């Protein structure tokens, strides 16, 4: 049923090898002799680009196979054995993983190229590319892993790289704190992931712990255990993919360099949770309740992210909350068992969100690292390529037909409506309108109207080709990617859904034509309303508003960070301090210290009678002799 394809192993290996070489080069030269940026850039980009070419090759190899037997695998080496079970470092290419593979390597390569321009002049240029390669290698392990354990290797690897890259500008203390926050919050999520994996292993892992065996044995999983596993795995997803209640790290993660925000915190890593749920669709399809939880958490996160996004002033923060919100859509999709719709949104989102972030990076660089949108304005003449590409990205994000985001978002909303989840659909439409509003708020404030800071404006200049070229390629993707999955109502064949079908356990809801029209109508209406409000408020050049009341509350993100700090972080530290200051010295070590103290006291007591004078000892002797003779006389009966 499955063939072997040894080139699969090379796909993650190439960037990993790149990371090793770059890391050694950096360490060997960081004490003086510098290697030119060109060499670093060359080494850094070779791995991702070759991986992309290999991925294309794998895609064609897979396409050549009949639909139901599209599995190619490769066991790189035996990792370890637990009891009777042997775990291999195995990779699996099936329609789902290959789709992920294609856009991860493509977007990854583009962002590597972009970074050559963006990071130029950075003192740790080589280190940056080493981390970026390491990230891509880990992400590819995550996507290609043939079982939960191999996925976990990648899962932790991308988390580590994210941590390292958020803290990249470590001179600023805030960035290091942001990195730590990301890692700890992710660790909480991972805790759920590990537990879910353990339960799954405990339940049906004995017969083989790879996806294909698990899928074959999934029906043996007891229903309650099934729900437990699904919910715990989803806890892992809420961490990595920034969902309620663990979304708090992602906006702070924007502290990292902008290419990192584009690659890791928008296009690839944060979608890992969605990928994981889709990967385990054979489990989620068995327990509807778990799916509903996923869908509702997702749509509520979409709403929350959109509310916060409407009131941010930092260009990257707006995009970050938009990512939180869009990830929520994806979970709503996979939650209502429309796995291919969710994955399709992952796919289109990768293009337009990476594009928007890279565009934002181009703006930030042009303005010498200013990120407050209220210092910008009228930039469309100064940065034409950035403007036009970002406009395409914005239209895709806002869900304007026929841009890619429209089709993928519509697919999710339609599935929710057709599946009878009217509440989810209604909130989804509301969020779509809000998305259009905050996206075009950004576009209008940054690019239209009059410059707000004349001096900044005068010094602005368009970015070099190495940065604008990736923008153009991504813009093409953001414009056309939607046509890959054109639904029947527009005369399409839903190629992506059909391609993904063998990997997913999916039930397609059969909605009527009316449902379909209602879904599309709702989305278009929401887009029009959202963009109109944004146009009326911001297109003419508004000034920075002062937030009061609810707006202030939303600007401060409902004070969730402060709440977490008080309710979770402080008590945790307090326990640590209490153990250290009170329990350890007085309770645990108490008996030991007490014993030592008793010995010392006994010593002191006996010391009193050891005075060192002969006359005193003579008295002791007399007393002793008297007692002895008394005892002797008693016992011998004199």
């Amino acid at each position, binding site marked *: 049923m499955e063939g072997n394809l040894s080139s699969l192993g090379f796909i993650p290996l190439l960037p990993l090898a790149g990371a090793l070489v770059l890391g050694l080069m950096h360490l060997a030269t960081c004490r003086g002799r510098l290697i030119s940026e060109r060499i670093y850039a060359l080494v850094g980009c070779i791995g991702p680009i070759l991986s992309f070419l290999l991925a294309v090759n794998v895609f064609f190899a897979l396409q050549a196979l009949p639909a139901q037997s599209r599995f190619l695998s490769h066991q790189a080496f035996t990792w370890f054995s637990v009891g009777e079970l042997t775990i291999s470092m195995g990779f699996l290419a099936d329609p789902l993983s290959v789709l992920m593979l294609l856009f991860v390597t493509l977007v990854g390569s583009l962002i590597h190229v972009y970074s050559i321009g963006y990071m130029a002049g950075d003192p740790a240029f080589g280190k940056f590319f080493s981390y970026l390669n390491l990230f891509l290698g880990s992400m590819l392990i995550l996507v290609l892993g043939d079982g939960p354990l191999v996925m976990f290797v990648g899962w932790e*690897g991308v988390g580590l790289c994210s941590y390292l890259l958020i803290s990249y500008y470590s001179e600023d203390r805030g960035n290091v704190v942001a990195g730590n926050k990301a890692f700890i919050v992710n660790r909480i999520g991972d*805790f759920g992931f590990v537990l879910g994996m*353990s339960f799954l292993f405990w339940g049906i892992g004995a017969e083989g712990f790879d996806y294909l065996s698990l899928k074959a044995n999934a029906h043996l999983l007891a229903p309650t255990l099934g729900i437990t596993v699904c919910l715990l795995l989803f806890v892992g997803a809420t961490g990595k993919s920034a969902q309620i209640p663990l979304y708090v790290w992602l906006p702070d993660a924007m502290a990292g360099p902008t290419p990192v925000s584009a690659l890791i915190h928008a296009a690839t890593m944060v979608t890992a949770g969605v990928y994981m749920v889709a990967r385990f669709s054979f489990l989620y399809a068995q327990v509807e309740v778990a799916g509903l939880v996923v869908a509702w958490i997702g749509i509520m996160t979409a709403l929350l992210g959109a509310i916060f996004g409407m009131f941010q002033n930092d260009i990257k923060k707006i995009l970050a909350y938009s990512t939180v919100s869009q990830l929520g859509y994806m979970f709503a999709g996979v939650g209502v068992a429309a796995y291919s719709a969710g994955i399709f949104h992952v796919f289109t989102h990768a293009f337009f969100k990476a594009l928007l972030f890279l565009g934002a990076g181009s703006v930030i660089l042009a303005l010498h690292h200013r990120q407050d949108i209220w210092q910008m304005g009228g930039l469309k003449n100064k940065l034409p390529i950035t403007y036009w590409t970002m406009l395409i990205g914005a239209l895709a994000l806002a869900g304007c037909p026929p841009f890619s985001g429209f089709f993928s978002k519509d697919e999710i909303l339609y599935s929710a409506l057709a599946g009878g989840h009217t509440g989810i659909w209604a909130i989804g439409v509301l969020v779509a309108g809000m998305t259009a509003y905050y996206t075009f708020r950004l576009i209008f404030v940054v690019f239209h109207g009059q410059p707000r800071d004349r001096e900044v404006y005068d010094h602005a200049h368009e970015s070099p080709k190495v940065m604008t070229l990736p923008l153009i390629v991504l813009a093409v993707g953001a414009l056309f990617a939607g046509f890959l999955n054109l639904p029947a109502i527009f005369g399409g064949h839903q190629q992506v859904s059909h391609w993904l079908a063998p990997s997913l356990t999916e039930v397609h809801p059969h909605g009527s034509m009316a449902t379909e029209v209602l879904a599309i109508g709702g989305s278009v209406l929401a887009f029009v309303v959202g963009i109109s409000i944004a146009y009326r408020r911001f297109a003419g050049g508004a000034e920075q508003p002062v937030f009061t009341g609810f707006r202030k509350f939303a600007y401060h993100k409902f004070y969730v960070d402060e709440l977490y700090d008080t309710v979770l972080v402080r008590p945790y530290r307090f326990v640590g301090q209490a153990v250290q200051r009170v329990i350890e010295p007085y309770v645990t070590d108490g008996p030991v210290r007490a014993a030592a103290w008793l010995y010392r006291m006994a010593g002191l007591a006996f010391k009193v009678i050891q005075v060192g004078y002969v006359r005193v000892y003579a008295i002791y002797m007399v007393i002793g002799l008297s007692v002895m003779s008394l005892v002797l006389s008693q016992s011998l009966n004199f």
Partner: protein
Amino acid sequence: MDQLLLNPGFPLLSALIFLPLAGALLLLPLRGDGACRSVSLAVTALVGLLSLLLLAGFDRSTAAFQFGETHPWIAALSINYTVGVDGISILLVLMTALIMPFCVLASWSYIKVRVKTFMICLLVMETAMIGVFVALDFVLFYVLWEAMLIPMYLIIGIWGGPRKIYASIKFFLYTLAGSILLLVAIIWLYRQNGYSFYIPDMMWQSYGSTAQILVFLAFFLAFAIKVPMFPFHTWLPAAHVEAPTAGSVILASILLKMGTYGFLRFALPIVPDATFLMMPYVLWLSIAGIIYGGFTALAQQDMKKLIAYSSVGHMGFVTLGIFLLNKQGIEGAILQMVNHGVTTGALFLCVGMIYERTHSRELSSAAGIGTYMPVFVTFLAFFSLASFGFPGTNGFIGEFMILAGTFQYDIVLALAAIPGAVLAAAYMLRMLQKIIWGGTDNPDQSWISDLNRREIVTLAPFLLFVLWIGLGPAPFIALMDESVSALLTNLQAHQAETLSAVSWLRP
């Protein structure tokens, strides 16, 4: 299992035991610190190389003790010099022999006064430590077990930090007190077994259940203090903080393993019935240690203390694995003993390298050192990740095997153990982040130099093992597999009897 394959050829084990002692004698007439360092390095390196011969000649297909040697020692009391290795001890012997040269290297510039005395202490330690792992005569074991305390006491007491006297006395008395009852148990076993101290003879006998419980308690006290298991661990942070780097490395990597080795070598085979009875309590005590160690480590400002408390947590995982009494658990535990030796040893070496530069073990004074020591923090990052079980490192494999065994035994226990893994990530990252980046108030460290060649050579082999065991642990597990299987087969034979005979004792 109770057979000893005698080694007719070159007495390899005796060579490993006595070569360091001979080296110590060789040092006596030497003058000059440099010569003492070089000779010690040569001797320990030679022992390390010889230990590889052990590996080459080791037969993995038998559970018997190999490379056996036996000579009468005190004939009147039928005390013999009997040694041998099996799958349980071989990894520990190898680890001891291979780590010692790096302890010498780590002391190269760290120890500046009384170099000769220090090196003699190290070499005597090595003799005693290798001896403990291969002794098959209980008196020989006990003598070496206690003999080890003296050089360690001196290492802490002479070359230690400001509170060295407090730490060394606490270490000495605490561990000594624990071993007193061990001696009583040994003498009782000696009388039960026809006046023989031969350890394999004592195994798998049918002692009465009350007697077994008493013997188990005696064993437990001695070994639990050595491990150290919560709540008998309070000597450890004090000793680690004050000890010089090499002392900390020996303590963490090798000495602590003697406690867990003791459980495997003595408690399980000699008093199996009592082991079954006590198993739930020891398991929960292990969990308590994992959590307690984690929380305490979280609050530390002193790097050595932090790693010391992390050891309490990690060794909790090891005792957890041992007392699961299933294959995943015990094999995971033995592997984790090696992992902890490699990783924690390396972490102490790292702290030592910082200390040599800043003369402080405070986390705050090392804040942001990564800016000036990129090579160093790369090493440190790998060891920290390994310490909290990052996938791809050795710690992941060990913890995963133990957790898999725990799930097989009792799911509640497993659920209780997992938070420990989260805590481990939290405290290690806290340290790592502080050292690599620090904060805004980093002390001025621009004068600090990165690792020199000797230091890179010291750390590199540890990194090799972190990745080797992390990516391909099979050869390591293959070494112990036969012995662990035999141990479990024998244990299961006893299980049925125990449950019927003294079921009222079960909780």
